[in-house]
């Protein structure tokens, strides 16, 4: 088990569509999903829409119950002693639901009532969190008057109030302005430095790349890759590299010629005016073949530059270009 904090083992989840109480259709959301999050990690959970990210998070936080498999926190099955184990989890949902008539302190006091916290703890920790998250001066205002960013910060305060061991965030930056995104990112980094393990799902790959130490990619309810960001990059680079070529006379036929070769992908074409830019993903050993092919087809090559493989490239490769649904 090592230093594993959260461990999902072959978790399965089907959504059932009912009519008059009878199940008329089931949709597989998670298909024997397994993943591990170790203590101190910031784990980015990636996947196209409908891949099962939110379902996984809902199963971890107990909003949904899995149909099979196990979800363990510190080696203990969450559902077996959910009272103790849910205390170890803080949760920030994508869609924030707060009672509009309550103010910050009343909101914190309401959610704190479900944890072993006395009034002093609530007051002390609540004040501290509101201060860190920049809500202190608005603490007396009813939540209905808050912007989405403020609501997210308050929801984060709720998630952190009982001092969880792992913070689970579902699309934490969705709907936030760039300043809000930056502030949230900075808070998450600080919390992680203080020892908090973080699991977050996000569509913003650059954000995951920037903040996360580890990444899991999910597609069709299955985890297809889980590693540190660095290792993923290295592995991808071993199998494929990205080249940016500045060329002239590159046309449709040249493009077809290249893409017909196994292991070569034209992923971008830009018209730079005097020249054209083409970006290729290909196996390293095929570089001579590409240059020969282009030259023999009267394409003039002005420059060849290697490009960094981004998480987005990995994501696109792993998920087959992203299944928008």
């Amino acid at each position, binding site marked *: 088990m090592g230093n594993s904090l959260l461990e999902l083992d072959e978790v399965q989840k089907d959504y059932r569509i009912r009519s008059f109480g009878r199940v008329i259709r089931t949709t597989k959301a998670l298909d024997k999903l397994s993943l591990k999050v170790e203590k101190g990690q910031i784990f980015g959970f990636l996947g196209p829409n409908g891949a099962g990210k939110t379902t996984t998070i809902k199963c971890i936080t107990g909003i949904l*119950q899995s149909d099979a498999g196990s979800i363990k926190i510190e080696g203990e099955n969450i559902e077996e002693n959910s*009272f103790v184990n*849910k205390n170890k989890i803080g949760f920030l*949902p994508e869609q924030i639901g707060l009672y509009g008539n309550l103010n910050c302190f009343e909101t914190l006091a*309401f959610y704190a009532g479900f944890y072993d916290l006395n009034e002093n703890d609530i007051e002390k920790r609540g004040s501290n969190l509101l201060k860190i998250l920049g809500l202190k001066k608005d603490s007396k205002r009813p939540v209905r008057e808050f912007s989405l960013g403020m609501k997210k910060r308050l929801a984060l305060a709720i998630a952190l109030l009982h001092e969880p061991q792992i913070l689970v965030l579902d699309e934490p930056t969705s709907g936030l302005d760039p300043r809000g995104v930056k502030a949230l990112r900075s808070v998450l980094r600080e919390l992680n430095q203080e020892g908090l393990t973080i699991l977050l799902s996000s569509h913003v790959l650059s954000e995951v790349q920037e903040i996360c130490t580890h990444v899991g990619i999910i597609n069709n309810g299955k985890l297809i890759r889980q590693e540190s960001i660095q290792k993923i990059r290295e592995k991808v680079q071993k199998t494929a590299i990205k080249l940016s070529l500045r060329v002239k006379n590159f046309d449709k036929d040249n493009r077809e010629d290249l893409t017909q070769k196994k292991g070569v992908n034209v992923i971008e074409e830009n018209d730079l005016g005097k020249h054209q830019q083409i970006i290729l993903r290909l196996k390293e050993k095929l570089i001579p073949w590409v240059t020969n092919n282009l030259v023999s087809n009267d394409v003039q090559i002005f420059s060849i530059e290697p490009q960094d493989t981004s998480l987005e490239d990995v994501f696109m490769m792993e998920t087959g270009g992203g299944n928008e649904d």
Partner: protein
Amino acid sequence: MKISRRLNQWNNLKTWQPLIIAISLIMIIAILHKAHWELNTETNPIDTWKGKKVTNDNNETNINFPENIGDSITFKGILMTSPKFEVYSNDSIVLGEYSKDEALVYDENLYGKTIINLSGMRILVNGDLSGEFFESEIITVKAYVIENTSYYTENGQNITLNREGWEAIPEDIHLASDTDYYFFGTELIILAIGSYYSLNRIPNLKNQLGFAKHLALFEFKRGLKAPRMIVLGSFFTIFIVGIGWLLGDLQNSTSVFAVTSGNDGLLRLSYFSFFVVSLAAIAVSVDTIHKERQSNTLNMLLARPINRETIVLGKALGLTMVVGVPAFIAQVLGLYFMTIAGEMPTIGCMLAFLIFGQIMIFTMVTFQLCLAISAKNGADVVIYGLGAWLLFSVVWTLLVYAVSFVIGIDVSAQNFENDPEYQAIASRLALLNPGFVYQMAVGLFAHRTISIDFEGVPGWLLLLSLVLWPLTCLRIATWLFKREMRG
């Protein structure tokens, strides 16, 4: 294979094993209870009464029963009439008159004796039972077959009546509840033990109860401030107080709507209370789950260490308080104004009115929660809620008419509502309506015992129904909620 599967199922029910064992034992005791009455008493006195042979021979009338003179049978039945109206006195009988119904000739020896009507059987009791027993009470009577001879005149002819009849002494008459209470007491003790051990097996019960309280208080504070509750609360308070006053005033009236006593007034007030309070109970809980789902507050709640059962329980308790507290105040005020204008009901009846009122509200809230959880959209929620209120409060009588018609009662006949068969159906169907259960339970406490018959529905069944309604609704609501939240 089957046995091991059953064993697995049993083991999975670990928490509820003690309660299941307790309920099984209670069922066995209930069977023994029934067997006790069937083996030791005649539970259909009318059969014995119908077994008599009346023969007319010249100037002689003979009434004979299959039983021998001196034989005794303990009968168990319902007092169909109030004994205080069945005591013979010089005002109530005409000496020398032969009563076919009572199968005897009135004479001076009957003065001070009571002829009881036990489920249709006439038994002559050698004593005055007025104030001792009351109409609708279920009693046991140890009666003996006696014979005597008396004379009467019919169409100018002197006729000798050789009569066999059933007689009893007051000491041999008891409320059935004297024995029933031993059985019910044992059952309650077993239920309490089973519940105690089952509850002890629920993980973190104390914490979960604390969460339920926390959620209930939150719902209560929030609900009281809700505009719809302010409107409905004001409306039902004015309504209950006004009706209370009116019912008190009607106790001094001679109109067709006259109220006969304080208890009668309270029974009617309980119906009117149900009429308005149930609407408020449904209105406050109509969208509770749906709205939380829409606003995503439910997900925030589900992510806490609170069980799904606790969420439903907490919400049900909170919403019950939202309606229950103002309703309690309105009911107390209604009672006060009723007693100012009229007679004071019995303490038991008043307590039942107030306490069972809270149970009724809890029932309506949990019933509506079941509908609210199942509903797929806001429109469904409102339609279900309104439908439930209309069914229980307004159109129930039509439903009873329809059922009666289907089973062959002529509902177009005049005074068909006095037909015992119709009344029996109405009583039994009333158990399926929490409003009527509430009203009848209040009526039960106007009596001194639970051995009361409400047109075929015994008092214990009424109390059982009063308890089962909220528990069943709560159980179904938690089951539906867990199913819906499972995805």
